[in-house]
């Protein structure tokens, strides 16, 4: 296992390099640069800005400089927030997004998985239909619509929570629910489907035939095996949630990195684009590695050579 993890980490370096290179090419190829302002800047000013940010260098030199600095832990400065380093912006926003994302993830798991399991156990019951309706509504309602509805109900009408900002538990609840709705729906449906798949397997029948109690069968055999797809989707969902959501963060004015990424792309903030994309790719790679390790722990028969 140790060797496997080390190999995966080495692979991750390669993955990050590829992601960095492709993103770097992409952002320079996309039409429009950071200094394309609605009110056009004079050439002298553009030249000064290019020189300041090293954009007057040849493309590959720029990339080389970026990588060399990045390896030393220096992700450069933001092109929008010119007084702030990319590292400090990400480090300021990530804890916020991560906290919100983790809370949302826990809500999604704690609501979604039990709901899915209940729906599977009582197939075609009220619980099952409720779960279907719940999932359909939250998957077909964009989260900005859900978010603003929450705000109108819980802030404007009931005055339970403030509409915006960050720092207190009361400010986490609404954005976390807005964020958790879709993953919860997805988890519920996936765990139901997976449960049903496993329940119909022969070894479950065998286990029952052996006279094991329903409870033991459920916990030891069904649940364990049914969790494989849940873990598979939980990985990327978790990565997506902790790295922030543009829509929910913007709607609830949460100072996370989700909206920074979108801003950086739309403003062509090259420094912040690279920083946030690499950070995101790093988070995804780590989480996928953890998922693969978890597979092995849940089902010892899965081996990686």
């Amino acid at each position, binding site marked *: 296992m140790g060797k496997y993890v080390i190999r995966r980490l080495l*692979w991750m370096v390669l993955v990050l390099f590829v*992601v960095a290179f492709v993103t770097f090419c992409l952002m320079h190829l996309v039409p429009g640069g950071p200094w394309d302002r609605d009110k056009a800047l004079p050439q002298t000013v553009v030249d000064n800005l290019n020189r300041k940010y090293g954009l007057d260098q040849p493309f590959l030199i720029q990339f080389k400089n970026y990588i060399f600095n990045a390896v030393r832990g220096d992700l450069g400065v933001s092109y929008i927030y010119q007084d702030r380093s990319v590292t400090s912006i990400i480090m300021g926003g990530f804890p916020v997004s991560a906290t919100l994302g983790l809370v949302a993830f826990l809500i999604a798991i704690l609501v979604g998985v039990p709901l899915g399991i209940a729906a599977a156990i009582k197939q075609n019951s009220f619980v099952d239909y409720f779960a279907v309706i719940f999932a*359909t509504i939250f998957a*077909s309602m*964009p989260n900005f619509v859900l978010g*603003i509805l929450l705000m109108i109900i819980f802030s404007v009408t009931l005055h339970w929570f403030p509409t915006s900002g960050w720092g207190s538990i009361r400010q986490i609840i609404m954005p976390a629910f807005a964020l958790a709705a879709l993953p919860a729906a997805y988890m519920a449906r*996936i765990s139901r489907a997976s449960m049903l798949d496993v329940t119909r397997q022969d070894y479950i029948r065998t286990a029952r035939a052996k006279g094991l109690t329903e409870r033991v069968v459920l916990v030891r055999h069904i649940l364990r095996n049914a969790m494989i797809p849940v873990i598979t989707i939980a990985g990327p969902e978790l990565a997506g949630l902790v790295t922030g959501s543009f829509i929910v963060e913007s709607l609830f004015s949460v100072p996370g990195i989700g909206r920074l990424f979108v801003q950086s792309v739309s403003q062509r903030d090259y420094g912040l684009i690279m920083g946030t994309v690499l950070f995101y*790719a790093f988070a*995804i790679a780590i989480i996928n590695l953890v998922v693969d390790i978890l597979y092995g722990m849940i089902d010892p028969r899965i081996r990686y050579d």
Partner: protein
Amino acid sequence: MTDTQQPNPSEMAEVTQARPHRTLLNDAWIRLRRNRLAVAGAIIILIFALGAIFAPLITKYNFAKQDLDSIFLQPSGVHWLGTDELGRDVFARMLYGARTSLAVGIFTQLIVLLIGLPIGAFAGSKGGRVDNLLMRFVDIMYGFPDILLIILLSAVLRGTVFGNMGGGIFVIFLAIGLVAWVNVSRLVRGQILSLKQRDFVTAARAMGGKGTYITMRHLLPNSLGPIIVSITFGVPRAIFTEAALSYIGIGVKPPTPSWGAMIHDGYNVMFTAPHLVIVPAVAIALIMLAFTFLGDGLRDALDPRSRR
């Protein structure tokens, strides 16, 4: 009933067994028709599809015709679902919008299935180096935010033969599909990694079953449930992605409507003209519900164990 999962020799012989001539698909079709919810799902999809195709016969309104004196009208006998910010008939826009959104929802998921299923199955069943390479590629795909990749792909694809197919909409199907398959492939791979160690698979292999045969016959059918759910959730996701793309000049151009764009355009006035958000949202929800029912039915129908 022959249970294909039994690790006994009769399993291999099943194909040639002399019993009423019914193929797997034939069987599945019969079972699907008996599932009332699945039939209801199919009917909903059919209604929307027919509505989209025969839209000009169903409504007298042109989806693009503006009437500045009838802006933001509530639903009424004249305008069944009201009018929008330029006085256009929302029912007509919903019908014509189905052309874009249904097609995007369905075709992208077909592409996802066609790519994600084989790659995931291949990685999972082969394991080792192949699995590692494919999954690191998936890591790279995951490493980019989806929308970035989709924009890139659309730009690339527009230069190819697909560029002008269906007025550019084909590019949208491909771009979304080519990005979304990674989710399904990881799901399939995870299932297969787990299933392939099971006794019945080991037995099948011991009896000389070929890798592909085992995958098709044993591994895939037993992991369909989560895959179908993932595809079902992919439908609204693709519909919303299309809306995001149409905003940045990729795909259907205004005034051609799509459900996702209708919701986004309506968000500003959500509380003063709620029908502009409710109509497309309900349409998307109905389609998703229909696919859920159909998907569940399909999964049950294809289940080898419930074969009679």
